[in-house]
């Protein structure tokens, strides 16, 4: 997904897939798993269950560790999803 976006030519493609919605423009967030953490820069490499990965800002939910599950909106983790599990 990210590689496609990085290619400027892809910006000519219609932007949004109407069946799944645009993850950034709406109030939509997706659950991702932390794969690797760059504590110094406040970033983490996160992946969805299909293996698609992206770099995520983790400042709002720090500290994070590999295996944590985060709710990500526009490249920023806005909430943790593992807390409910911890409380269960």
């Amino acid at each position, binding site marked *: *997904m*990210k590689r496609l*976006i*990085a290619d*400027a030519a*892809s*910006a*000519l493609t*219609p*932007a*949004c*897939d*109407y*069946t*799944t*919605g*645009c*993850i*950034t*423009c*709406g*109030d*939509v*967030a997706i*659950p991702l798993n932390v794969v690797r953490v760059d504590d110094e820069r*406040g970033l983490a490499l996160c992946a969805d*269950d299909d293996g698609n990965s*992206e*770099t995520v*800002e983790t*400042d*709002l939910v720090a500290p994070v560790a590999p295996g944590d*599950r985060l*709710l990500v*909106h*526009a*490249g*920023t983790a*806005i*909430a943790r*999803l593992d807390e*409910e599990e911890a409380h269960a």
Partner: protein
Amino acid sequence: MKYVDEFRDPALGEVLAGEILSLVEPGRHYKFMEVCGGHTHSIYKYGIDDLLPANVELVHGPGCPVCVIPMGRVDDAIALAHEPDVIFTCFGDMLRVPGSSGTLLDAKAEGADIRMVYSPLDALRIAKVNPERPVIFFAIGFETTAPSTALTLRRAKTEGVPNFFCMCNHVTIVPPLRALLDSPDLRLDGFIGPGHVSTVVGVRPFEFIPREYGKPIAVAGFEPLDVLHAIHMILTQLKQGRCEAENQYARVVPWEGNPRALQIMSEVFELRPHFEWRGMGFISQSGLKLSEAYADMDAEIQYSVPGIRIADPKACQCGEVLKGVIKPWECKVFGSGCTPEHPIGTCMVSSEGACAAYYNYGRFAREREVV
């Protein structure tokens, strides 16, 4: 997928729908507004409308940030994109929003370097690999997205990226809700509150709705059972004579929001005295601009933007749709002059827009109603 599948269980949905049926009083008409475009999308995608009793009506609110952007701001964005050497970056939905003389996609076809990004961080990355060119990020969204922009601007400052600029169009959710509640032509019985905005601001900012306007609100998640559960909560309040702000999405939303997100927002942004909303006019203190500490990264200060106010197209009734006064299909141009492929109004552009959602999922339901 964990946290998703269990909230899409059809059997539980049936149970909830049954309980909702038992909560409604026959002969009373209930009208609830889903504030957020994400909820509109879920309602149509999963056919939640079909599970509700006929006397429970859902109306769409102003919660799609793309839909509320006025034409003049699109024109300003296009003007910035045409500035020499500029790389203009924005989210995908914005590319297709019509200004008074075309879209950003049209401007790209004319030669402007406009690139779609999935996050502000992507835009910053483009700025880093093109240090000789100014990169402008078109920031848009409610409080869900604003912290993301704020974090990226702070990162650009601390990492020293002098060619990164921001055209800020962030908006806040409470002022338009207040404007709606003050509007005389609107009768509502309750609100389904925005889920992900609330991860940032919390539930507390919505307490004024029951307190000052006497309407219950339940902040809700986006899976079908979340939305049904929120409707169940609101109906239960009405039946028991309560009127409160409740949190259906407690697995993600803290009552007080995310203090770190609120802190970074207050560092990077300040409130504009007023901001124009499509179809709703100017609403005071409803938009954000960059604070003085970040003025050197504010594209509106560093470049001259036309800032001309353009009236909405006459045929378009996005304003009434955004206020929940009419249903998307009641607009004169819905599905004929205005389609997702050739939108006239913004509500048809973004997938979170009420008209686009209705066009893609809801029109069959309407056909059933008509028959």
